[in-house]
């Protein structure tokens, strides 16, 4: 348990508020930025940088309540180190693209790691948030409890908002115990077979906590009670992977070979979608639901081909990293959905100053 911080946070928040109000009054864009480890992600960077890192610190952590509350500028590494001391974790396994990564950026980008398919995404663990809107006002949504249905669930909406609705000042996240047992297995398997097996296994009570298919090899991670991990390992067979931790970390942080060079597309599809035939190489995670397509280069025609193939499979494609952003980073929205987006943006950020163009 941590004592509430007694520091200059109120002053810093007041400064943020003054700066936001001035920006709104002048109609001048602000670029909300934590450690800047994901500057390459999203459509456009525009505006004067508002650096959130001065607003840092863990506000409260109650291991027995499974909740941590931290200010936006708190380094992810600090939070994960504290949780690890209590044998707990952020179960969505956020990627660390750099040591400077902050919790505000983790929530704003809503990128989840290998455990996502079994444990849930960032939004599934957001319990509450304080948002500073375009009027410079701090709005508190949700709370620090697991069950809360008072008011619309705006705090979860902030996960993945890329700072376009306002400045996430503070966030409360549900945490989970680190699994007691964990082991990794490898199988030689074709893409089609791997997708089939992953979907079949997902319908059985097996403790699969991560999966990766790449170049004819399927790697699985099993996590849970010792007995469950041992039983599943016996049942599934395969070959034990010695350094599982390093492997899954390389996927989480995208230091794995597959993620270097070229244009990287993230294909988010129903896990049951069969193999999607596209030029380039694919690495498949999340039981089939997240497929990373690496292409050397990509023109407008190819981008359209990727989007239509993925849409036909029931998903959406993001030009995640590299490539020509003029092709459009995020998947186009249906008109009715785009209209709701515009109205939400307008209500939280009437002058349109927060990260304009970062998402659409």
């Amino acid at each position, binding site marked *: 348990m941590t004592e509430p911080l007694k520091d200059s946070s109120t002053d810093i928040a007041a400064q943020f508020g003054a700066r936001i109000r001035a920006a709104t009054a002048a109609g001048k864009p602000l670029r909300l930025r934590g450690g800047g480890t994901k500057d390459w992600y999203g459509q456009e960077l525009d505006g004067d940088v508002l650096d959130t890192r001065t607003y840092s610190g863990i506000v409260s952590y109650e291991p*027995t*309540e499974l909740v941590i509350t931290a200010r936006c500028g708190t380094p992810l590494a600090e939070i994960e180190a504290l949780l690890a001391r209590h044998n707990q974790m952020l179960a969505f396994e956020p990627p660390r693209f750099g040591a400077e990564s902050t919790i505000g950026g983790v929530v704003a980008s809503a990128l989840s790691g290998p455990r996502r398919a079994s444990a849930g995404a960032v939004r*599934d663990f957001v319990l509450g948030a304080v948002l500073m809107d375009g*009027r410079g006002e701090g709005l508190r949504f949700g709370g620090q409890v697991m069950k*809360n*249905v008072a008011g619309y*669930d705006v705090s*979860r909406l902030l996960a993945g908002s890329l700072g376009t609705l306002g400045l996430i000042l503070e966030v409360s996240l549900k945490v989970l115990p680190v699994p007691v047992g964990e082991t990794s297995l490898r199988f030689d398997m074709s893409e089609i077979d791997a997708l089939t097996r992953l979907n079949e296994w997902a319908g059985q*009570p097996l403790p699969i906590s991560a999966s990766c298919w790449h170049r004819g090899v399927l790697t699985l991670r099993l996590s849970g009670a010792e007995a469950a991990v041992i039983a599943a390992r016996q049942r599934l067979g395969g070959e034990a992977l010695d350094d599982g931790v390093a492997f899954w970390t390389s996927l989480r942080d995208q230091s794995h070979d597959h993620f270097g060079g070229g244009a990287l597309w993230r294909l988010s599809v129903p896990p049951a979608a069969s193999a999607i035939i596209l030029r380039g190489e694919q690495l498949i995670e999340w039981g089939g639901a997240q497929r990373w397509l690496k292409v050397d280069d990509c023109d407008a025609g190819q981008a359209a081909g990727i989007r239509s193939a993925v849409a036909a499979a029931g998903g959406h494609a993001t030009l995640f990293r590299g490539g020509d952003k003029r092709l459009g980073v995020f998947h186009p929205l249906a008109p009715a959905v785009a209209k709701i987006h515009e109205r939400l943006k307008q209500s939280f950020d009437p002058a349109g100053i927060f990260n304009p163009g970062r998402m659409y």
Partner: protein
Amino acid sequence: MNTAIPDPGLLADIAARREQVAAALRHVLPSSAILSAPEDTRPYECDGLAAYRQLPMIVVLPDSEAQIVAVLGVCRELNVPIVPRGAGTGLSGGAMPIADGVVLSTARLNRIVRMDAYSRTAVVQPGVRNLAISEAAAQHRLYYAPDPSSQIACTIGGNVAENSGGVHCLKYGLTVHNVLRVRMVTIDGAVVELGGEALDAPGLDLLSVFIGSEGMLGIVTEVTVKLVPKPATARVIMASFDQVVAGCEAVAALIAAGIIPAGLEMMDQTSSRMVEPFVRAGYDTNAAAILLCEADGTAEEVEEEIARMSAVLQTAGASAIAVSQSEAERLKFWSGRKNAFPAAGRISPDYYCMDGTIPRKRLGEVLTGIAQMETRYGLRCANVFHAGDGNLHPLILFNANIPDEFERAEAFGAEILALCVAVGGTITGEHGVGIEKIDSMCVQFAPSELAAFFSVKRAFDPAGLLNPDKAIPTLNRCAEFGKMRVSGGALPFAHLPRF
């Protein structure tokens, strides 16, 4: 009873309006789908919160998305408010009608469109009952995890509206964690898909703000839910504690040991003494608190977890521990907890059920506060507690026939909710705000936050016609407080367990 007293002038206005709206609706719906005579609309005058009643002007029963689009078109054209309704089991008056409004029942949209074991998904219409999904999935050894206590009757559309939970949500999550996609119609008549069968969708996560929006943002026409493998087995531990606080500390110790039980429920002595004569669950009525702690999974997993949990509970000072030895015994241990509400109705003419959530470590303090209030208000209160997630259901026992007991019970309830907010909790964990707790929203949210909620509503429903005046109070409402009132111990749907 909060039944509106009809004003003759108003009634005449409504009668004329009813004729006008019904005539327009008859162009888009078969007459069998339109109810307008009071004897036909009477069953819709309240939901599970029976103390609040209002006869609707008209009830429509569309059986297709196209009909819903058409109904919304008529209502938009004529500026008629719409109250969506599933099974009407809600406990906060979210489906309470509006005198000059239309109730849109999803009862006829009750088809399971697709059940796919390979992708572990079911596509269902909003009027499909929660339990019907799990029953249909059972042949594939799959089920839909959220299990609100009204699950045999409540519908998935209502679950989406309320973000319903259940006793297993600490481990398996709420509706928001188990719904992949919602298809809905906005007041503009646009058909909108939120989420999808992929694990995320492009743009803002509108699905998560839609779930739990109490029917105020759009009318659900189809839902894709996630199905999960059925645990092979489950066992429950029943532990007794001499002090409530010791029971709470035991829960904290379980979590600290890295255990997430499938179910974790606590009852105070008033509750166990209330239910034991009723269900004979074998509860230790001398214990200050009883904790039920469930493990599920494979047989090996359950055995390992039961052993670990028993050890933690012993160390935490449990005065007695019993582990269910059979499925029948497991259900027996649970029966008392699941029958707490009916048992309250049996020993007291009336009761209020509160639904606050608190940080668990503040439970001792909150229960002490409630005990002091019992003395101050001269009323008894039994407490049942979803201990894993901090959701507290105090049941205030009173007799409405005794002058001023109702008013005292109301004030008592309001004070409990204010205490929940004061210790860092919330006024509603799972029952929703609806009409019942709308005034307590003022205790929890600042005017700027309430304004933000209204702007979210406008983003989806600029016309403000979908379930207006529920869940989010206008500032000039922020004065009164209302609670769930159960008269004569009889809940609507009295056969459903409530917990």
